[in-house]
């Protein structure tokens, strides 16, 4: 099976260190994810791609008990707040080890999201790694 990203340009793994790829505006400093070639805050085109922080904290979460296009129920998703002051929507895994609480430290991983006939579709997930509450 070939590993393919669920969408292109959203994340990378360099020397085993995964990161989401955002954009940062050179004019107003706004960080966006997914990356944009124009800053949506000030419309400046002076934007560069940046690797976002791997660690963040859980802003909120829910477990969904109906199927989505790719995920059988139940699955857990949430918003993770990164130090760049943006929120990332993501699948959440590993909550069996650390029951989720708002403010919990979360870490980014690149994992298989689902499989289709030919490919292993990979993407980003966040996991609670220590159970530590950051707020």
């Amino acid at each position, binding site marked *: 099976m070939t590993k393919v990203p*669920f*969408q292109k340009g*959203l994340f990378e793994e360099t020397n085993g260190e995964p990161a989401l790829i955002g954009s940062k505006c050179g004019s107003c400093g*706004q960080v*966006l994810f*997914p990356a944009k070639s124009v800053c*949506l*805050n000030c419309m400046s085109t002076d934007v560069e791609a940046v690797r976002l922080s791997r660690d963040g904290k859980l*802003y*909120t*979460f*829910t*477990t*969904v*008990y*109906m199927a*989505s*296009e*790719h*995920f059988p129920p139940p*699955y857990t*998703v*949430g*918003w993770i707040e990164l130090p760049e002051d*943006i*929120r990332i*929507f*993501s*699948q959440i895994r590993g909550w069996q080890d650390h029951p989720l609480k*708002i403010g919990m430290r979360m870490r980014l991983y690149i994992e298989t*999201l689902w499989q289709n006939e030919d490919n292993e579709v990979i*993407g980003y997930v966040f996991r609670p790694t220590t159970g530590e509450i950051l707020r």
Partner: protein
Amino acid sequence: MREVAIIGVGSTVFGKFPEKAIFELGAEATQAALKDAGISPEDIQFAYYANLYGGMVEGQAALRDAGITDIEITNVENACTGGATAVRKAWYDIASGLYDIGIAIGAESMTTSPIAGKLIPPAKGDPSGELGMNTMAKFALSQRRYMDISGVTLEQIATVSVKNHHNGCTNPYSQYKKEFSVEDIVNSRLICDPITQLQSCSTTDGAAAVVLTSLDMARRYTRKPVIIAASVIRSGDYAFRQKDITFSDVTFKGVNDAYTIAGIGPEDINLCELHDAFAVNELQHYIELGFCKRGEEVGLLMDGITSITGRLPVNPSGGLLSKGHPLSATGVAQIAEIVWQLRGQAGSNQIPDARAGLAHTLGGEVADLEAGAVGVHILKV
């Protein structure tokens, strides 16, 4: 700008009617509104017709069956705010003097829509959609954080649903017409934790219509015209500008625009139909609409102030939770409900001496935006 008044309203019963075409629902509501206004189909000079899940020129098909052809018809889509948008556009065409009399209609068949029995996902290509986002999950995420920060309990949130289902029991247009207890709501099927089935609106079909004219002309048709004191549509800002996902900035801005235009404040509102797609939304909207300060919203509910017998009844029709939520019809139906209240025609759900009412709809999933749009109307007699 001329003052604009509503002289006729009509609605289908809300419920599950998979055997009915969208245009049949639309035609039925249109005919009811024409009859209520006491006018003929040929009196209508223009129409706005809101629908999301049907095909092309749905409005022409509905109006054809109501005897209305050979006029300017515009089909409108703005998600859950579609109906409010149709009313807003009709308001403008009369306020500006372009036309003298027109109709705004909203119609939707959710049971025959592609999303029947499903959770509504974002648009194709949005990464969050691929990762399992849907409209209910979005509000479950908001509710989880809201409960965590405010200490509001699931039982208190469920009380919104109890109240609105109680109101819906005596509204002949309502879908459910059934009482539920807090336990019923909390123990119903869990869909997006902590949102259970009965904290959510259901799958509903229905249509509603309102006939508008200038206030001067309205006096020829009725002794009790209902004046549109404010009509506001506003799109959502970038999500990265929303500091707190439990507070709808677009609702706050939209309603403040409306209060300014109408020259009145929240203290002057006698009843409100607001967008309770999920029970938690109603508590959050109390704050954004200016009915109370943050932290006082549960008191407003639990003390009975927003009950149908309270000082400020909210969703006396049963709201989206009980009356139902056929997306594009909702904004028009809310206005029809307020018109009946202000005319004293709301039957056993009548609020005594209501002089001013507020209608609020919020909707649409767009990646990177807080929401698609908000619609706010203030009506008065």
